[in-house]
């Protein structure tokens, strides 16, 4: 406003440290993942299979937190949607090269896992319906941090194409993301 004093600004970096106590379901998922197995929970009412599991079905609102609900999920599936990211170099950006991330519908799961890194693939060849499999980190490099929000990336380095025919769009049209 006219006549008022100029506004001065100061720079202050904010750092937030926190500890998360993960739920038993998340801890269990992380342990199995580090041992090389992706697990999910099947809802006893609607039969939908959740991975990573949250311990309940968010549609039926029933618990799925005991061993009897646990099912093994394949480490291979179908790319249902994707983007090729050309990383903007804002402060703190760690990515330098163009890369692809995808939503993947794993065989045996009812919902996709999102933001999964694709690798060993020509970026022009990435497509919806493409079949992919997990490239696991060496066992000693797997971090027991899936429970802390790092998800599948704590044990799986990336996903690469496999030589299988594409899944037709109509088979996953309702499970794109």
């Amino acid at each position, binding site marked *: *406003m006219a006549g008022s004093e*100029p*506004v001065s*600004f100061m720079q*202050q970096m*904010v750092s937030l440290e926190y500890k998360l106590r993960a739920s038993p379901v998340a801890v269990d998922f992380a342990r199995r993942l580090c041992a090389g197995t992706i697990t999910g929970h099947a809802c006893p009412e609607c039969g*939908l*299979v*959740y991975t990573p599991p949250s311990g309940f079905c*968010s*549609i039926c609102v029933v618990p799925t937190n005991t061993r009897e609900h646990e099912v093994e999920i394949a480490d291979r599936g179908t790319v*249902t*949607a*994707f*983007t*090729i*990211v*050309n990383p*903007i170099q*804002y*402060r*703190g*950006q*760690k*990515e330098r090269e163009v890369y692809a*991330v*995808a*939503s993947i519908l794993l065989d045996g*799961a*009812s*919902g996709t896992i*999102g*933001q999964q890194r694709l690798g060993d693939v020509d970026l022009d060849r990435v497509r*919806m319906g493409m079949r992919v499999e997990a490239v696991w980190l060496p066992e000693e490099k797997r971090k027991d941090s899936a429970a802390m*929000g*790092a998800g599948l990336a704590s044990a799986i380095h990336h996903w690469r194409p496999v030589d299988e025919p594409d899944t037709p*769009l109509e088979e996953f*049209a*309702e*499970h*794109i*993301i």
Partner: protein
Amino acid sequence: MAERCAVIGIGQTHHTRRRDDVSLAGLVREAAVRALEDAELGWKDIEAVVIGTAPDLFEGVMMPELYLAEALGAVGKPITRVHTAGSVGGSTAVVATQLVQSGVHERVLTVAFEKQSEGDTSWGLSGGRSGGVGAGGYFAPHIKAYIERSGAPEHVGWKVAVKDRQNALRNPYAHLKLDKIDIDSVKGSEMLWAPIRRLESCPTSDGACAMVLANEAGGRRAPRAPAWVHGKAIRSENGFFPGRDPVNPVAGQDCAADVYRQAGITDPRRELDMIECYVPFSWYEPMWMENLGIAEKNRGWELTDSGATAFEGDIPVNCSGGVLSTNPIGASGMLRFAEAALQVRGQAGERQVDGARRALGHAYGGAAQYFAMWVVGSERP
């Protein structure tokens, strides 16, 4: 509904990349003063204040409603803060409307804002230290799925990008003024998150928007034509569950159905004179036209392609230039609501749609899971 609600004052800042001449408090006050001037009211006439903004970390001010109470004349009055991610500007207006409709207050000031330059929103939206792909990277696969599913030609996204920027040239408050933009420049701009190009993306802006809402008596006494609220609604859904369709979310469909029902609208394409819709990436125009029931499933792109959503079209969308031209995140939703109200008041200046009597304001947020909408009209419902 016990009371009718009228929008009797509207104010906004001139949105821009950085407002170094004002603090956060100065920014919100600027919009609020303009809204009060439009309503010809003073601070003492306001009974309560409802404010909205996106996550606190965007500016680094925790619980900004406490710090901003003085600047908004709210000391000793009820002040409420609303937070529903990107849709917050819309939900904030809905909460303020409810305070009037319920008869709790006669006159309410509602304000939404973002001063993106003060924080580090690119970093914040990209997941901070844990990495991440940002809002563009998150929504790009949804857009990709829409294009695949609908068979829309790729130039539809470019057309929206050009149309909204040309509309912004008629709006003195808009941030981006890209007077030379055309299809070739959009198509030639850098691909950031395929299929989203740089010129198909929203900017980062500093700005605020404010409205004064009043009950029926206040609406009748208003010095300028008010906009009457014919319907308002909020809906949300879980962001992740098997079978969720983020391209055409059920929460958005339900929200639209609710506001149309309240407003007595059965054919929104014909009965609405214009729409201000939350389109941060160009492809969201055709996607939301389907979600809002303006176009049939997989055919929203034909609406854009035919020019129906252009300023001169039969259902103009984002005559203000929209989020693609101005994006102070927390305020972006309220700007949609306010621009819809300006249109039915006949106060939209050069961006005025001739004879607009009924308009829809729309906002969305989160993982395309939070929705807020209102229908406003020139006639008292």
